[in-house]
């Protein structure tokens, strides 16, 4: 057998990330006693370094290596850069929270890095095995992160729920992948594509495979009717972990949906499109309606996140390159907004006071008008009110779904957006119109966090005034 040394260059960011994550894992056991913050800074440094590495080697060509199992293209690079940006924010917000809640441990950061590595692999996966391995790296790291607060029964319950349902979803996905493999005889995404398009595979087996894959992906995305785990996990996890699982993994999940359905089986669009339509409509309606009844802010964000996933799927339903770009734009905007929203909770949380009930925000405008204004931006952006970026995210997916001929889906979308505005408005109402139960200024936990949450929130406004910038990046990465 002929052994060829593969080209390692495209995977340099992943390799560096793996090496440094492993190093930090070991080093943490030695330096954590003496230098409390060393792991934190090393983690942030690693992320920055990886981000810079991606930026300087940014390429618009598609480079495939490791025997056609790993691809580096503009799509992957853009998503990875956003994963890095979002994660930098996540770790920054988490630090103080972890300290206050007594689990400021190195494992949180190293598990986080491994999860990010998993996401990177998912984003770049070019064959089913790589994709699956990436997914597992990410999921296992996240199960452990949720369960890290060992004495919290809520967190443990959330972890078990996430683990059991996650394993089930993985199983379904794997089953679907194996069917596709059985029908096409290949694990590599472009080969699967060409076999399917040539019409050589058994269409019944393929259809079954696609159904299982879509169900598996539905679990991972948290789309209705596979959403049951989302609210419990969001609510039960420590806020720092919710912040982590609420943002970057959505980007990675988007990536595998794209890799599998669009790169892999575009020929079966008539099989997966109706499934996605059902999931999108249910997600938008169920997510919105149930969110209205929530009193816990984390649960509210969980259900509203489900509704957002419904919107995201609209881009896939359009099944055009512009539609996928719109979906990608949507997921990036959602990730940024989500970090800002959970970041706000963490910024205001105190030891023993989670600040995760909607009523905790009462009279925030009296107590801290600046942060109240930031929260206002976040809420209106999520509701899709201009001039914030959330509006453009909705507009582009609606535009694409209309262009594809599904005007009725757009109508469902906007009606749920109106209903959804109600619960975001309620948060604004509580902040601005209700009187605070206690007087006195409510300071952010640290200045650093106040700055970070302001940066994320103001980004929603600035990007909203100049959406062309982000759109250019997204559209160019997919349309080349």
């Amino acid at each position: 057998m002929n052994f060829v040394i593969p080209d390692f260059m495209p995977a340099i960011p992943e390799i560096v990330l793996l090496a440094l994550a492993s190093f930090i894992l070991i080093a943490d056991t030695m330096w954590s006693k003496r230098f409390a913050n060393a792991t934190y800074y090393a983690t942030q440094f690693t992320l920055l370094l990886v981000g810079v590495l991606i930026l300087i080697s940014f390429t618009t060509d598609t480079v495939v290596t490791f025997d056609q199992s790993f691809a580096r293209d503009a799509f992957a690079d853009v998503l990875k850069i956003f994963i890095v940006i979002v994660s930098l924010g996540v770790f920054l917000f988490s630090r103080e929270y972890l300290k206050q809640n007594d689990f400021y441990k190195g494992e949180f950061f190293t598990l986080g890095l491994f999860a990010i590595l998993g996401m990177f692999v998912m984003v770049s996966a070019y064959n089913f095995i790589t994709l699956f391995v990436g997914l597992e790296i990410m999921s296992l790291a996240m199960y452990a992160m949720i369960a890290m607060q060992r004495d919290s029964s809520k967190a443990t319950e959330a972890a078990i729920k996430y683990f059991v349902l996650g394993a089930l979803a993985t199983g379904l996905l794997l089953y679907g992948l194996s069917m596709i493999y059985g029908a096409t005889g290949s694990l590599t995404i472009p080969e699967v594509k060409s076999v399917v398009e040539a019409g050589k595979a058994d269409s019944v087996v393929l259809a079954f495979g696609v159904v299982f894959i879509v169900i598996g992906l539905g679990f991972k995305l948290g789309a209705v009717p596979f959403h049951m785990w989302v609210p419990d996990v969001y609510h039960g996890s420590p806020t720092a972990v919710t912040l982590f699982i609420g943002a970057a993994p959505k980007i990675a999940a988007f990536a595998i949906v794209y890799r599998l359905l669009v790169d892999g089986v575009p020929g079966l669009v008539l099989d997966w499109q109706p499934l996605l339509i059902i999931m999108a409509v249910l997600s938008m309606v169920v997510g919105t309606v149930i969110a209205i009844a929530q009193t816990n802010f984390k649960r509210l964000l969980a259900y509203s996140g489900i509704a957002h996933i419904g919107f995201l799927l609209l881009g896939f339903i359009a099944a055009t390159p512009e539609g996928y770009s719109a979906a990608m734009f949507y997921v990036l905007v959602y990730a940024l907004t989500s970090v800002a929203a959970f970041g706000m909770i963490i910024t205001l949380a105190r030891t023993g006071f989670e600040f995760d009930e909607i009523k905790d925000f009462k009279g925030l405008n009296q107590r801290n008008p600046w942060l109240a204004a930031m929260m206002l931006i976040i809420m209106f952006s999520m509701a899709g009110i201009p001039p914030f970026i959330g509006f453009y995210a909705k507009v582009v997916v609606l535009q694409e779904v209309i262009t594809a001929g599904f005007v009725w889906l757009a109508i469902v979308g906007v009606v749920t957006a109106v209903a959804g505005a109600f619960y975001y408005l309620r948060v604004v109402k509580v902040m601005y119109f209700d009187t605070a139960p206690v007087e006195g200024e409510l300071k952010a936990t640290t200045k650093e966090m106040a700055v970070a949450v302001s940066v994320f929130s103001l980004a929603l406004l600035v990007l909203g005034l100049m959406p062309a910038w982000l759109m250019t990046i997204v559209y160019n990465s997919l349309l080349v």
Partner: protein
Amino acid sequence: MSLGYPILSTLIWLPIIAGLIVLFAGRNNPAFAKWFSLGAAVLTFLLSLPLYVAFDTTTSAMQFVERASWIPQYNIEYFLGVDGLSMPLVLLTTFTQVLVIASAWTVIKERVEQYMGAFMIMQGLMIGVFVALDSILFYVFWEALLIPMFIVIGKWGGPKRVYATLKFFIYTFMGSVFMLVAFLYMFFQSGSFSILDFHAMPIGMTAQILIFLAFLIAFAVKIPMFPVHTWLPDAHVEAPTAGSVVLAAIMLKMGGYGFVRFSLPITPDASMTLDWLIIALSLIAIVYIAFVALIQSDMKKLVAYSSIAHMGFVTLGLFLVYSIVSKTGDVHGAALGMEGAMVQMISHGFISGAMFLAIGVLYDRMHTREIGAYGGVVNSMPWFGFFAVLFAMANAGLPGTSGFVGEFMVILSSFKANVWFGVLAATTLIVGAAYTLWMIKRVIFGSVANEEIAKLQDLNRREFAIMATLAFVIILLGVWPNPLLEVMHSSVDNLLIQATTSKL
């Protein structure tokens, strides 16, 4: 026509930036917040005057145009311009803003900087709505406007303010999203979001009807028309005085402006097919809502209902054109109704603003709006009595005030269209006079109702200046409406041609 500098952008962004400065710098410094806002409002008003002076009345084309690419992926542009339909509304906005800021001078004590900042930002956004020529840009201004208004009603409003403001927001948002879908659909068909391109594109009948209905929902809620008017009395009653003024004087006009900018020129065939619907709803508003106004015991509510009735004239005047054309075959005969509708919008801006400010003056002193709590106010407040009666007469459409001009033009042209339309519309001359004057009789005249009224102070200098300015404008437009009609002429003619040219 254009000036050496981007005047429209200046008018949009100057108030918004001023509002942001007030928000930041005005904290714990209410005096600065007030004076700075007033200065910015006056400056914006002065800067808006060149629009009128340099306006070319001979053309219906867009003037003072600014155009730049904004979101190239979807061909969305930063595209501004005014014609004879929007220019008067811009001036109305900048003019009203000065009075609005002045009216809140002593009343607002809590978070003055947020109040002033919200109004300044709102002003920029409102001007943006009137001058945007790209539909997405228009939509951005249109929706963004809800945010400051939501806060203003909810924070400084009356006891049921939260209910009122949520209702206001959800109603308007619900209406506008359908308009957004219509825009997106038309972009899909034409490849452009420019409103002028929408005017020119052919659209099939089914699509036109659906687009027309989408627009109708958006604008009918905003203007508001029966039966989606119910948010208005709530919002008006609960909003602080300045909020009511902005709502009545300017935001309602956006609905009317939407009809002339979007519905009539973009979907002329659907407008022709469905004009009966609009006319019926307008007549219901004029007749039924006027009777509803009659029985109100809350002054603000009464004026709110009277606003709905008056807006009925606007929609009636706009959509009479098809009956007139089919009856007389003369397109230009229909111009009267349409110009009447436009004049009615501007005039109602002044009159309703004046009414709400007058009620605000009383409310500041007595803290009640119940008609029953008043009586004989004129004895202790003679100047106030003078202005209140004048504004009430204008509201009732007395000749010599601006309220007469628009109503009269619309009633005349409705007789041209159909005698029954005319008869029904003309009932407003009776019922409108009845509810307004009856309120005045109960509040201003009669014997002094109680000791508090006897102790009332008459208008101070600030209030006097506000009232006198409004009174001056209302009478000026009443006796000499020509300057206003002149600027509208070519644009209305052009609109008539667009509205009567089939796009199938």
